């Protein structure tokens, strides 16, 4: 990766997660160890669990799965003295459309995840941990499985790790292809052998989660940041990023750019520069129309907003959207917004678990209405109706899937009203990309 010296972007040396990512055979334990891998364990085991939690709190690390909840606080909620087993579950069910950051870690640097899980399990007094990996990640599953075997063979997993007295068993569990199992309580249900229905809160997983025991669910990227924080200290982590957005973050960029891929950047870098410099700018010199900043559920940014938006939690909030999982989807002018929205709405309709009425019925209705407008059968009243329905779904369900389905609809209507109007006026797609009978 060549980045010039004046760039706002990190040099490889400065990176936390991707420092050695392009090294050959990094997935094998010997290569990983040669880069200093597993060295954080010694320091971690010399600390008290609560000291590790404090260090993570100090770092300001926030959950990288999408919600951005402070990780140290999450660990702090666990009632450690109930006498029940405590479970640490790694959420590797990366399924939000546009997101493929964890996949890079899982396939290329699985040991960094295992190291993160070991340190985090020590902090959370957990002796049995599961990695719940997305069903479609078959290659990643093989790599991780192999890495777990290697870690057991080297004594990093199992009984009395490195003589510390800490025991940890780690199990890889493959999902079966449901998006909802990436929601933490849906994941827990699925891991328990049940249908992947998200669970009612309260009780929160920290108190009663997997098998009714206190449970911490952390994203792959989150756990991978922990060893660095322990080695260098929480304070050092806060030197990266700004405001409430500390540290570095992986962004997976896709769409109409020259160099789609996953990049690690310091939080707070300008989105525009990210697209231009790291992702190589717009393909074929096309004009940018919209950017979905944080995975398909996050409302889009317009060209004008992209000019000033930064890749951090706060900046995204000012534009009415979210950093989410860090999945940036770049949409060029010549792609139809309605066609894109139709795909997204279909996705959420297909993936709704069907438990809560507003989501079960609402996602289907949104999809039907978006399709109707996209295909040229819509009326101005349909746009209002679509907007009203999406709004009414917000915040009404057990998990956030209803919101995830409604937010892009609301965001696209708000930021690109002309595109909706054009489909109505034109009785079809002005770009001839949406299906339907009128073209």
């Amino acid at each position, binding site marked *: 990766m060549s980045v010039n010296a004046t760039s706002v972007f990190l040099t490889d040396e400065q990176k936390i997660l991707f420092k050695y990512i392009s090294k050959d055979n990094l997935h094998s334990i010997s290569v990983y160890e040669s880069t200093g891998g597993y060295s954080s364990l010694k320091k971690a085991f010399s600390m008290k669990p609560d000291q590790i939690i404090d260090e993570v709190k100090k770092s300001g690390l926030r959950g990288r799965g999408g919600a951005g909840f402070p990780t140290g606080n999450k660990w702090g909620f666990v009632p450690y003295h109930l006498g029940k087993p405590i479970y640490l579950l790694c959420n590797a069910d990366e399924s939000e459309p546009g997101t493929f950051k964890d996949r890079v870690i899982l396939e290329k640097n699985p040991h960094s995840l295992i190291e993160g899980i070991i340190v985090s399990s020590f902090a959370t007094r957990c002796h049995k941990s599961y990695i719940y990996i997305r069903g479609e990640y078959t290659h990643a599953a093989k790599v991780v499985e192999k890495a777990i075997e290697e870690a057991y063979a080297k004594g990093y997993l199992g009984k009395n790790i490195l003589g510390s007295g800490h025991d940890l068993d780690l199990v890889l569990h493959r999902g079966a292809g449901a998006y909802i199992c990436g929601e933490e309580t849906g994941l827990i249900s699925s891991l328990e052998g049940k*249908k992947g229905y998200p669970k009612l809160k309260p009780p929160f997983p920290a108190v009663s989660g997997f098998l009714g025991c206190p449970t911490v669910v952390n994203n792959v990227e989150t756990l991978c940041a922990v060893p660095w924080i322990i080695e260098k200290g929480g304070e050092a982590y806060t030197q990266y990023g700004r405001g409430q957005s500390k540290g570095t973050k992986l962004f997976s960029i896709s769409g109409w750019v020259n160099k789609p891929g996953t990049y690690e950047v310091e939080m707070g870098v300008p989105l525009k520069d990210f697209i231009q410099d790291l992702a190589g700018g717009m393909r074929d010199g096309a004009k940018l129309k919209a950017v979905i900043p944080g995975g398909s559920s996050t409302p889009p940014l317009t060209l004008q907003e992209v000019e000033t938006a930064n890749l951090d939690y706060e900046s995204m909030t000012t534009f009415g959207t979210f950093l989410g999982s860090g999945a940036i989807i770049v949409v060029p002018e010549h792609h139809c917004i309605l066609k894109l929205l139709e795909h997204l709405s279909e996705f959420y309709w297909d993936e*709704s*678990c*069907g438990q809560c*009425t507003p989501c079960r019925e*609402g996602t289907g*209705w949104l999809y039907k209405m978006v399709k109707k407008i996209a295909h040229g059968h819509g009326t101005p009243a349909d746009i209002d109706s679509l907007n009203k*329905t999406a709004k009414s779904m917000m*915040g009404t369900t057990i998990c956030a899937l209803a919101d995830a389905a409604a937010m892009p609809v609301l965001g696209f209507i708000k930021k690109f009203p002309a595109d909706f109007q054009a489909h109505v006026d034109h009785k079809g797609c002005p770009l001839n990309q949406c299906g339907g009978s009128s073209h």
Partner: protein
Amino acid sequence: MSEAPNQIKLTINGQEVSAKPGMTVFQAAQTAGIFIPHYCYHPDLSIAGVCRMCMCEIEKNPRLQISCNTLATEGMVVRTDSPKVTETVQSVLELHLINHPLDCPICDKAGECKLQDYYKDYGLYKSRIEYESKNHKPKVVDIGSIVLDDERCILCTRCVRFTAEVTKTHELGIFNRGDRSVLRTYDEKALRNEYTGNLADICPVGALTAKEFRFKQRVWFLDRKDSVCTQCARGCNVTVSVNPQTTKLYRVEPRRNPDVNQSWMCDTGRWNVHYVGDQTRIKSPLVSLKGQWVEETWESFFKAAGQAILAQPKKVLVGLSAYMTNEEMMDALETLSQLGVSQFTWLLDEKTVEDRQAFDGILKHHDQTPNAAGFLQIMEKTKTPWMKHEEAIKKLQAKEYDHFILLGLEGVTMPGVADLLVKTPKETAVIVHATTQVALFEKASWVLPNTSSFEKSGTVVNALGILQKLQASMPWQHISRDVHALVFGIKQGNDRTVSPTARYQTVFKRFSNEAIFPGARSDWRKMPASGVNIGVVGRAEGIKYAKR
């Protein structure tokens, strides 16, 4: 550690409400008489939180919460009537209805459907849905005693939770996901529990309908009466629905009583009621002439048989059925004693009352009569000597009796009673007072029509020692007579039937006055619908009692 307070105070819709610690906002509101719409919540099932109808606004919380899963806390300020809540409930209701068929004209639930009710309360909007765009699903899925209509199902999972938590038979599950979700039995097998009728009750919409009631009657034609099921010693609280025009019994449903039956009843109690109106019902007094039944009048029975009985009252054995109400028993004992009758036994299957606690683990008691406990209590308190079957049979076979009168039988005769009849020598004249004709009665000289439990009012005591009210939901069928009328007829020698409404109330008064049932109210009308716990009931040798 300081003790938890007994009551917490919160404010709901500006009204101060007291609640027990541990109560949810929903329960606190309900206690205060504030209604919150709901589909998936059920007081006797776990919380699912999926219908999203019971939304409430809690001060300092930007998100609306479901009241069924929100703990009420001290000082909480809740609104269930704010514009934000009302608007949300309306849109959640609209989402419930977008794929719901417009079936009301042919749906059995119409008239008692929560979709209809809430649409009236919260909806009344114009439909934004074009019919063609609705999802269609199978409309007739046979799952045993119940028929499932997938299109009507709102997936509230009450039925799934019922089979998981109450019967623990786990027949039902939700299959597929999203709006393709359907309710099904596993492996498409039929329901296999004895409580299936409850599924139709708890279904808040018309998705689960009972074959027994399906397409039989519009609910708005039915009169409802609160009563008690008489098919076992549990005495499940029920509501009986009768069409007043035809006096036909259409439905028996459980009525919630947390101390007796929660919200449930078994299929036997619910559906084994056809004897009330079917062909086996005894329609008039019958006298046996040369092996043939000949219809007779009550007048002639009282004249002929009544006099024969009274001629030698010491040689009369009277069996008192445990189907009789307490009031009937009191009248029978007193009236017959006055006439000189002193030999009594009970009519039930003694094997089933050896252990009064014996039941199926849910509701159904082995003792299939409703009032063995009442019998024991009355016999003890009135100090009336009586015999168990062994002694009665011994005396019957020693030909000590000219007459054996079986009083107040109902339904199909149970084994213990059959045994008594079989062992009665042919020299003893048998007089049977029953609702239903069975082959065993062939040896009787008279068969007399009894009123069923649905035709009489009074009280019974269940196996838990709770005195409960039976209320007539239809008039005496055919020319049947209850026990009050029968014993007075024998005494008077004519059929000047006492008024069925007055008599049991007069007798009931004595239960508290004479301390026969401690705690019973002196006015029958003031007896609470949930019954009165009278505690320890009368004892008989060799019988174990239920612990409360």
